[in-house]
């Protein structure tokens, strides 16, 4: 059995989800010009997630930046193109994607009490996100 750690945080959008983490310590934009919301693939040039898909992952990133239209990036992925993340965890939520997570019913949290989300969770970790009760469980991926 892999070691499982439990963290608590602020509930942004209620619900439960689990999946493999995709993590970046950088801010992200889901705006249509730098993110392909029909496939879920990051296009932001030079970003460490460039070329990677957020589909079915627990997406962990710093916060939203760039265009306010990032809202529609998440909304299109989840409601139209079926390529959205299963859940989201931010260091600090911005209303740009928090609002879309709330409206589209994507479980989401931020401000983990034990530290910064992108330090506590690594890409490949298995994350169980309980945004009804405000905690997450992280099982470390085998290295």
């Amino acid at each position, binding site marked *: 059995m892999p070691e499982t750690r439990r963290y608590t945080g602020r509930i942004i959008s209620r619900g439960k989800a689990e999946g493999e983490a995709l993590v970046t310590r950088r801010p992200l934009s889901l705006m249509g*010009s730098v993110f392909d919301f029909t496939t879920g693939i990051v296009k932001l040039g030079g970003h460490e997630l460039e070329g990677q898909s957020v589909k079915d992952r627990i997406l962990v990133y710093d916060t939203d930046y760039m*265009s306010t*239209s990032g809202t529609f990036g998440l909304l299109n992925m989840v409601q139209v193109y079926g390529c959205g993340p299963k859940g989201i965890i931010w260091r600090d939520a911005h209303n740009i994607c928090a609002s879309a997570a709330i409206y589209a019913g994507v479980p989401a949290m931020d401000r983990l009490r034990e530290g910064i989300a992108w330090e506590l969770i690594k890409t490949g970790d298995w994350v169980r996100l309980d945004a009804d009760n405000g905690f997450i469980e992280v099982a470390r991926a085998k290295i």
Partner: protein
Amino acid sequence: MRLSDGDKRMLDGSEGPAAREAMDHLVKLGEAFEADELVDIDSVHLFSDWLLMNEAGLRLYERFVGLGAKMRVHSSCEPIGFDLSRWQEFNLPSEYFSKQMQLSRCLRQMGVVLTYSNLIHLTQNVPTFGAHIAWIEGNATGWANSVVGARGNRESPINCLMAGITGRLPKYGLLRDENRRAQVIVEIDPEIIASFGAPGSTSCDWSSLGMLVGDLAFDRIPAVVGLPRRMKIEELKAFCSMCSPALTTSLILMVGISPEAPTLEAAFGGRIPKDVERKRVTLDELKDGFAALSEVPSTRIDGVLTGCPYKTVYELQELAGMLEGRRVKPDVFFWVYTDRAIWELAEASGLRERIERSGARLYHDACPVMIPHDRMFGPDKVFAADSVKMIRLIRGLGKPNFVFGSLADLIRAAETGTFRSTRW
């Protein structure tokens, strides 16, 4: 979160299904961001364009039109991808026009004033000190908070819609006094300000300075020291335009200019914390940042894009003067952007004719960030622009190449087909 009787009436459906759904969303939003209450808002500014909203945006608007949604407060909306009276000049993909018309019809049915403008704060949706606003658009919220002292986050387009339907918004973020204090000091080297003011350099100079300040502060509210006591509207517009994409917040406390920052102490709510971080922007850093916005120092170009944020009528006067007797090369396009109100003024003042005599085009409604560059141009085109905001936001769209320079350099490039920056 405390709800007023009016909020409760909306939530229980007494004011119809649109208000019920909108209030339900706003209550969840308020709980997420730990607001104590909702407040009345004075105006909303909504998204409009097909490229960035796409099918989910259309579904959102159509759903609320179906529920009978109407705006309860003053409203305005963002630019779209093309000029509605000259759309044939835009070579749009076939479904683009009809999808845009569906979105526009929804906005009209909800009673949104069709401004198609990012300069609403200077034309049709003018904020006042202390006003509560629910606006998308970084440059407009940046101006409203920083220059005027209105209160509002750069608000998500979903939240703006719900706020317009209910006239309410959770009191969170920049709507709360305690969240409007500076968190970092950014000093501007006097050399920088002394070097500003060359003809046709307002947009490139002030937007690149805004970029450096924004990149240093990122998600903290900067107190900016060293700005001139009196700044022109166009200088403030270019500087505050970098609230997005450089900053995640929409408040720059410009000491001596912003109403909430007559002094540096006031920017911090009375006392400067001892451990506050102090940053300084030097002229060399500005020159490096400026140069880095061009992918190459000199190149042939296919087009010039200027008017981000939209040009004021005074910038159109300046441009008309600079284009006098000049001729844009036939295989180069020169697209100038403003809103309909300013365009009409430019037409009546003879400015539109003087600008277009050179071969340039003066468009309203349109924003170059909202056109499908990849399908219209392909990846090989080279654009010249004088706005950092425009370059940062378009760069992903079909990945066109960009060069950055002063309006004077842009005009020379349009005449000759070759760009070379002479600004520094």
